[in-house]
């Protein structure tokens, strides 16, 4: 055990260093900068184990990562908010190209106007790009998940985004159990996926194809991603045997008699966890894996506990529809024999969720069945 005090961003960088990557191409953006700086410091001390390159934009960071991964290298990059939006074309391209890439996104509201709070809309609006997405609620979870994401991404040949909230996670210091370097590198092992670019092999890689050919590729990618929960569970089992910690695609707390649950992803899940003892007959589900959406795990849990109501904490809002996690959840539970009612607590703008706000929201939500959406700002 080697506990160190570090921020969520530092934990992400330490995980990358523990894994050992060939290339980090990155561009700074608040609140992700500490990740880039920490990795550059590793490079400066000769401890990164690979190359660090400062590129001219987020788009370039992901484009450079794509090129290196296509050549068979293990790569990492990190961004936030506008940076992620700027990458959008490359985000699609990388999943279509089936290159393994691990990227951290630190949630931050996208403007206009300029804003710094951790709205999840940046990463959630990349929902349909073919990337896996895992949300973390604390620095330890960040470190462990980033490490595991490399194995997941390389096994499925799909890029993986590890997401956490700006400031509440990225800038908050916690005691983190840092795995021993040799033990970590032995656990992860060198990359074993095949390079797409092999100089001795002529190939027309990701060239123009027909719609029918594309349809086959999209189906194959979809089916591959549906394997992610099982692969992730297997990775966590091995991780637990080596490091003594593990995580699920969802993590739940179900006190006896639970009839309603609070459903959250990222830092708000931690607030929910600590507030739970104040609430009666209430459990919680922390959604960790958002893509693929762990429909089966969620439905099985709700069925096993006869859950009647779910209050979703959505630190985001899809204008014209509402909270994105609530929409996803409703689609996932459609078809259950007795699907729970879904209420949505919207913290758009990345506003903070305090225990008081949550308690008030839960009290009011319990009594007013018809209110489907509640705005966090009204509870301040």
């Amino acid at each position, binding site marked *: 055990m080697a506990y160190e005090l570090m921020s969520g961003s530092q934990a992400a960088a330490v995980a990358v260093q523990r894994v050992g990557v060939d290339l980090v191409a990155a561009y700074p953006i608040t609140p992700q900068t500490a990740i880039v700086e920490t990795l550059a410091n590793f490079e400066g001390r000769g401890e990164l184990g690979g190359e660090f390159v400062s590129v001219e934009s987020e788009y370039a960071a992901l484009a*450079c990562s794509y090129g290196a991964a296509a050549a*068979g290298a293990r790569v990492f990059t990190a961004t936030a908010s506008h940076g992620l939006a700027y990458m959008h074309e490359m985000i699609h391209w990388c999943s279509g190209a089936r290159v393994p890439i691990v990227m951290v996104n630190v949630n931050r509201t996208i403007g206009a106007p300029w804003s710094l709070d951790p709205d999840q809309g940046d990463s959630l609006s990349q929902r349909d790009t073919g990337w896996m997405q895992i949300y973390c609620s604390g620095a330890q979870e960040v470190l462990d998940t980033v490490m595991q994401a490399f194995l997941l991404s390389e096994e499925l040949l799909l890029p993986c985004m590890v997401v956490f909230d700006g400031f509440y996670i990225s800038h908050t210091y916690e005691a983190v159990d840092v795995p021993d370097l040799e033990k970590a590198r032995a656990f992860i092992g060198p990359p074993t996926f095949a390079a797409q670019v092999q*100089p001795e092999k002529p190939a*027309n890689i990701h060239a123009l194809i027909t719609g029918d050919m594309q349809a086959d590729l999209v189906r194959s990618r979809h089916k591959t991603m549906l394997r992610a929960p099982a692969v992730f569970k297997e990775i966590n089992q091995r991780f637990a045997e080596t490091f003594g910690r593990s995580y699920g695609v969802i993590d739940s707390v179900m006190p006896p008699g639970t009839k309603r649950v609070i459903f959250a992803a990222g830092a708000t899940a931690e607030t929910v966890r600590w507030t739970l003892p104040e609430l009666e007959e209430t459990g919680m589900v922390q959604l960790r894996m958002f893509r693929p959406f762990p429909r089966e795990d969620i439905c099985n849990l709700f069925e096993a506990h006869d859950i009647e109501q779910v209050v979703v904490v959505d630190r985001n809002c899809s204008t014209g529809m509402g909270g994105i996690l609530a929409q996803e959840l409703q689609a996932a539970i459609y078809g259950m024999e007795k699907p729970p009612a879904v209420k949505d607590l919207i913290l758009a703008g990345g506003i903070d969720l305090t225990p008081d706000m949550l308690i008030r929201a839960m009290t009011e939500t319990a009594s007013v069945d018809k209110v489907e959406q509640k705005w966090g700002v009204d509870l301040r």
Partner: protein
Amino acid sequence: MRIEELNQESEMLNPGHNACPGCGAALAVRYLTRALGPNLAIVLTASCWSIIAGMPPLTALKCPILHCPFPSAGSVGSGVRRGLNAKGQHDTTVVVLAGDGGTFDIGLQALSGAAQRNEDYLFVCYDNEAYMNTGMQTSSATPFGARTNTAPYPLFKEGQKKDIMQIMAAHGIPYAATATVAFPEDMEKKLKKAQEIRGFRFMHILSPCPPGWGTDSSDTIHLSRLAVNTGFFPLYEIVNGVSWKMTCQPEGKRTPLKEYLQNQRRFKQMEDIRIEALQEEVDHDWEALLEKIEATKCSD
């Protein structure tokens, strides 16, 4: 060069590709791959060559081609180079291939970033002076006075063609050169020279486009030669951004620009006053180039 002098064994362009008849870009890449192959990896951005390369599993070249999105070429090249290095493949020549759109316009930021970092690869721009793959729309490489489908008659391209070579020279990169398909020996010499240099290298290749320029497919070489002999597209190289050298002088006096313009449909309705304006621009650029070359000689 006579056809029997070509080394057929080093040919990297497969028989059968999707280029139009008389395509300067197909010829340019044929010369390029033959000069630099066989240990070669090409990064290819959206351009005519995205089509020329063919549909998988078929391929027009005997080396890997990694396709990439339009603005990304310069950055993907950086990644492939570093990725191959990580895999111990330092000897592979990495070439990023882009059209004028992917170089002068949407790809300029990535190109500049890679050049500034002195990434170890060769960036080749085959310039057909408009978005030809999408059907001839104006780019910032389109010359003054030309008509395109986004500048149809009575409109014309206003403003000068962007001087990409000066931009690259300003980055102080180890090597930059111009070339065109009518002068394959000159092109090959530059490519082989570039291959021996480490760091960022840039080649600007003028590639006539029969359907876009509105010329006969048999005129490609003739036009390419006229572009050089009029001084519209001089053949030169720049070492370290400061050392300028002409590599292929027009024979005798420069040919009047009108001879280059007159048989191209894109300049068909170009008024004399604009032809004169373009001639003046070419003369001015020619003198400026000679001054740089003279200054280089003086400092040697």
